[in-house]
């Protein structure tokens, strides 16, 4: 169009009232970072074994695989969907890799199959949700049983063991000194997902869909396609996590990765992603993963039973979300 003035030119509207920096300082991520630092300090005071690079390195296994999936899950939840089948998708990926391994496939084939199966699981969920418009929470409760069920059909009470030595690299290898392969994958995934969600058109569409999918469609966004891609991504990350976990355990049983989905969702929510969709950030998820890792490792060093840890994680989840709200409630009184 030409730039002829049409209506009397409106008043000047400022771009921003609050600077991005000031906003960041008051953000959820900042709060989480403070929590993380506090836990770090508390841990180093509580146990003499905490500040040991090897121990810290071992501790990363508590969260790396879950956090990888958490990044994709975060995007999915921002878009207003959820995938509860990730743990079962891991089981299925691992089973397929096990079958191939038993048939004599080498490491590259195993990796490709793991990724491919993950993508297939994601595509299946994506098809049901995006194409047929079924609600994701119930679809993935169904596929959660289905995917793991297939593993049980294949494996029954047996297990696949004897993965090639080169395959062990993914879950047991080190890249540099104490830096594990898994930690590197985690870091790369964090950067890529952070960029995709916060710096690309695709990420912007994800936010738009999460806030109002109808209006997003009315704005010319291919809502179904975006959702389908998000499910694919979640499947892919489940595949990568399956490779890491299978490699780390050196074996496949159908019960592998049971209960992962809820821990992944916990990381995502703790990371400040609104479960209702439309808001949250990847840096938040990264910090939340670290918080979870620090809490479980610190308590582990004190030989606190896992269920007590989960009470603490559950309390942390509610507490960290409740406190700011309580605070504003009290202040308003």
């Amino acid at each position, binding site marked *: 169009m030409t730039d002829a003035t049409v209506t009397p030119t409106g008043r000047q509207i400022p771009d921003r009232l609050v600077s991005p920096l000031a906003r960041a300082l008051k953000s959820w991520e900042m709060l989480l970072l403070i929590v993380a630092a506090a836990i770090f300090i508390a841990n180093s005071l509580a146990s003499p074994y905490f500040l040991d690079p090897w121990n810290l390195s071992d501790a990363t296994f508590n969260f790396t695989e879950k956090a990888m999936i958490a990044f994709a899950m975060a995007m999915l939840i921002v878009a207003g969907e959820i995938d509860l089948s990730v743990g079962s998708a891991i089981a299925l990926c691992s089973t397929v890799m096990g079958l191939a391994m038993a048939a004599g496939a080498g490491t590259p084939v195993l990796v490709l199959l793991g990724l491919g199966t993950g993508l297939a699981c994601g595509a299946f969920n994506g098809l049901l949700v995006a194409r047929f418009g079924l609600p994701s929470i*119930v679809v993935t*409760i169904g596929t959660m049983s289905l995917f793991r069920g297939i593993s049980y059909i294949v494996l029954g009470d047996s297990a696949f063991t004897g993965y090639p030595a080169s395959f062990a690299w993914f879950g047991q290898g080190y890249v540099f000194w104490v830096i594990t392969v898994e930690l590197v994958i985690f870091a790369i995934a964090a950067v890529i997902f952070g960029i995709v969600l916060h710096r690309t058109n695709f990420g912007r569409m994800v936010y738009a869909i999460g806030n109002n999918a109808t209006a997003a469609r009315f704005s010319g966004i291919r809502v179904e396609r975006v959702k389908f891609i998000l499910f694919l991504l979640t499947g892919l990350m489940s595949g990568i996590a399956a490779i890491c976990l299978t490699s780390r355990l050196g074996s496949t049983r159908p019960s592998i990765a049971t209960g992962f989905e809820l821990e992944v969702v916990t990381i995502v929510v703790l990371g400040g992603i609104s479960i209702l969709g439309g808001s949250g950030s990847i840096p938040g998820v990264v910090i939340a993963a670290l918080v979870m890792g620090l809490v479980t490792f610190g308590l582990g060093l004190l030989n606190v039973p896992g269920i007590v840890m989960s009470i603490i994680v*559950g*309390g942390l989840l*509610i507490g960290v979300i409740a406190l700011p709200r309580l605070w504003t409630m009290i202040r308003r009184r």
Partner: protein
Amino acid sequence: MSLLKSREAILALAIVALLAVIASRFPAFITPRNLAGVLTDTSPLILLALGQMAVILTKCIDLSVAANLALCGMIAALMDGMGVPLPLILLAVIALGAGLGAVNGLLVWRLGIPSIVVTLGTMTIYRGAIFLLTGGAWINAHQMSDAFKAFPRTVVAGLPVMAWIAIAIVAGFALLMLRTPLGRAFYAVGGNPHAAVYTGISVGRTQFAAFVLAGALAGLTGYLWVARYAVAYVDIAGGFELDVVAACVIGGIAIAGGAGSVVGAVMGALFLGIIKNALPVVGISPFWQMAISGSAILIAIAFNARANREAGRIILKQAEHRT
């Protein structure tokens, strides 16, 4: 109205078809005695599905019901161990369950935290509380009094008390949902929370009531479960919350809230219950169980979605006559 009817009709047909398939391989399954057994076995699922239905109607979800059940069941067993009489135990577990539900409800209502987050947290906390209470120890049949164990299995008029309790509560729930302001408020809050405020219904308070109701049912079921299986430990009914949600979904309770019926929820629970009971009986390898129930859930969702699909608006006169 017709949509609602057809949705439940489809489910009823599916149940009949399922029974027919099972009967063709194993006729004894559909003897009244065995069906009564299936009903009894499914009672906990029915009770929890009703509570979950109230919660889902209000646009919430309660993932903590199974943990609530386990905690209340454990408390019931501990109270029994201290010699508390059964009626008192029953009152106590219902009150405790309602209290645990109220904690969820309060967090949702007063602090506005999404229910899935709240109950994800309380799920681990409630289960953890059992561990803290007992150090993880089990309470076994021999540590329970006979009266405690006998109550749910006492047969009255051909059915165990457990089944009668389920039937009574289903009837009560139907009345509650259709004929009381609270029941209608559940639908209103889920159907259009915005509008509910305009009609003087407090969204938060109604959600709170749903959580309390679900909690009370979970508490009662906790006792029934522990007494029936004669064991209490940290992990009882682990993962049961997903079965409960699945039952509701199969029963056509809209996960987005505001739509669904008591009949649907009960049939959804029965559908799952029959599958779970029939598989070992029909002799299908146990390794197939999970995949089969997963597929059943998916098929049910697809059916519900078809029955529920929004037809376009009807503007053309000729189209109107066709419908």
